[in-house]
């Protein structure tokens, strides 16, 4: 296959689809994972509102979801995907399994970020009569923001990797192109180009994320 306008268009479309999947999966992943992570951090033994049973249940659910390999999850949730999107292939459909894979992983990262917040600072807020809601919004999330931003960067990179895997089942995007051309048709050139684009994407995300994290960090000079 020669390099032509059609080829370029295919890659640009693939890049667009990949970004579309990654951005929306991360967004939905956080819509589910952020509250879940807050709940985990708050209800744990050393949290601001310990709830032993709730923590155990959430802990187990998150562990189970996280231990299912993504390729298996992709197939397992097809009925749900069909219900929500109407079909089980293409980039929009892939957002469903990506979100389900991302949410528990994001919840864990949020939990660990919030648990890093110095306990003394939380007690200072409590001693001034701050409600748990104020502590969560202003102290936990406010003080953990650098770590949370690093978490978003990691989440975007990981979901990008997952999205490429979805190419195996016709998930769309760059991973799909890499598998169809590079693997099934032995078009090594195309495969290399898509992989290079994916690598560059991860690099850009990483640099931007770390820059943002540094800018928001007030703790060190």
């Amino acid at each position, binding site marked *: 296959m020669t390099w032509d306008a059609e080829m370029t268009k295919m890659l640009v479309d693939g890049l667009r689809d990949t970004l579309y999947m990654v951005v929306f999966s991360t967004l939905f992943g956080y819509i589910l994972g952020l509250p879940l992570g807050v709940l985990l951090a708050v209800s744990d033994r050393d949290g601001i509102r310990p709830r032993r049973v709730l923590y155990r249940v959430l802990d187990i659910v998150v562990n189970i979801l996280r231990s299912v390999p993504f390729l298996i999850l992709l197939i397992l949730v097809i009925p749900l995907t069909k219900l929500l999107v109407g079909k089980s292939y293409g980039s929009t459909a892939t957002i469903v399994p990506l979100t389900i894979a991302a949410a528990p992983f994001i919840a864990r990262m949020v939990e660990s970020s919030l648990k890093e917040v110095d306990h003394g600072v939380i007690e200072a807020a409590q*001693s001034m009569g701050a409600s748990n809601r104020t502590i969560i919004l202003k102290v936990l999330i406010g003080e953990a923001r650098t770590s949370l931003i690093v978490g978003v960067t990691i989440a975007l990179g990981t979901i990008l990797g997952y999205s490429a895997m979805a190419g195996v089942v016709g998930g769309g995007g760059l991973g799909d192109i890499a598998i169809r051309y590079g693997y099934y048709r032995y078009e090594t050139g195309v495969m290399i180009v898509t992989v290079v684009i994916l690598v560059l994407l991860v690099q850009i995300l990483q640099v931007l994320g770390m820059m943002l994290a540094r800018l928001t960090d007030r703790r060190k000079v």
Partner: protein
Amino acid sequence: MEHDKEVDVMEKNTVLSLRGLVKQFDNVTILDGIDLDIRQGEVAVIIGPSGCGKSTLLRCINALEPVQGGEILLEGEPVVSGGKNLPRIRQKIGMVFQSYDLFPHLTVMDNITLSPRKVQKRSREDAEREARELLGRVGLSDKEKSYPRELSGGQKQRVAIVRMLIMHPEILLFDEVTAALDPEMVREVLDVMLDLAAQGRTMLIVTHEMNFARAVADRVIFMDEGHIVEEGAPDDLFDHPQTERARSFLNMFTFESVRAAKQPV
């Protein structure tokens, strides 16, 4: 009738009242039946060896630690860990910690105004006006835009005191607030506390600064092994301790001169 009136006056004057307070950690008893009344405007200083339970006592008063027995009454209202009235009642109990515990991501101004704005729902203008006034009083007017990392330990602790004062607490708790400071910074923090005492604030102070305790206290309380062993006016307790335990504790702060024992050079 006459008697009732007297009781009423007594209760009004008592800001904080502890009755048979018991605190245990994993079956180890830290506080073993503490009874204590703090009157309006009184400055009480708690001294005692480390591990005697004095810091735990302050943490219990603020419900940062649940208690296993007894009760804590602030102006007659029970302070219970996890209680419904806790956010409201905690606003009346100001606390300053050894480790300052300023919010590292917030400026000095935001550290101070967070609680009045979010907890007491005061306007930003109102909170910032009072914050500036208080910062001026502790000599930190030029630091409102600084972040905690840019301040010295003494400055951080003064900010922490302002952050507590802006909530207009009824009683101020100080938990070894100079213990983490370099000697030359201890003074600036103690001066702020002396000033508060002179204003007639009700204060309960845990400290190892014995000279400061003598100067600031109306009453000194000596604690050991979870008990109040002895209490009294500072001069009495420091100069004429009644119990062996208080005597041996206070002896640790004095040194015998070695010059007399030395061989002539």
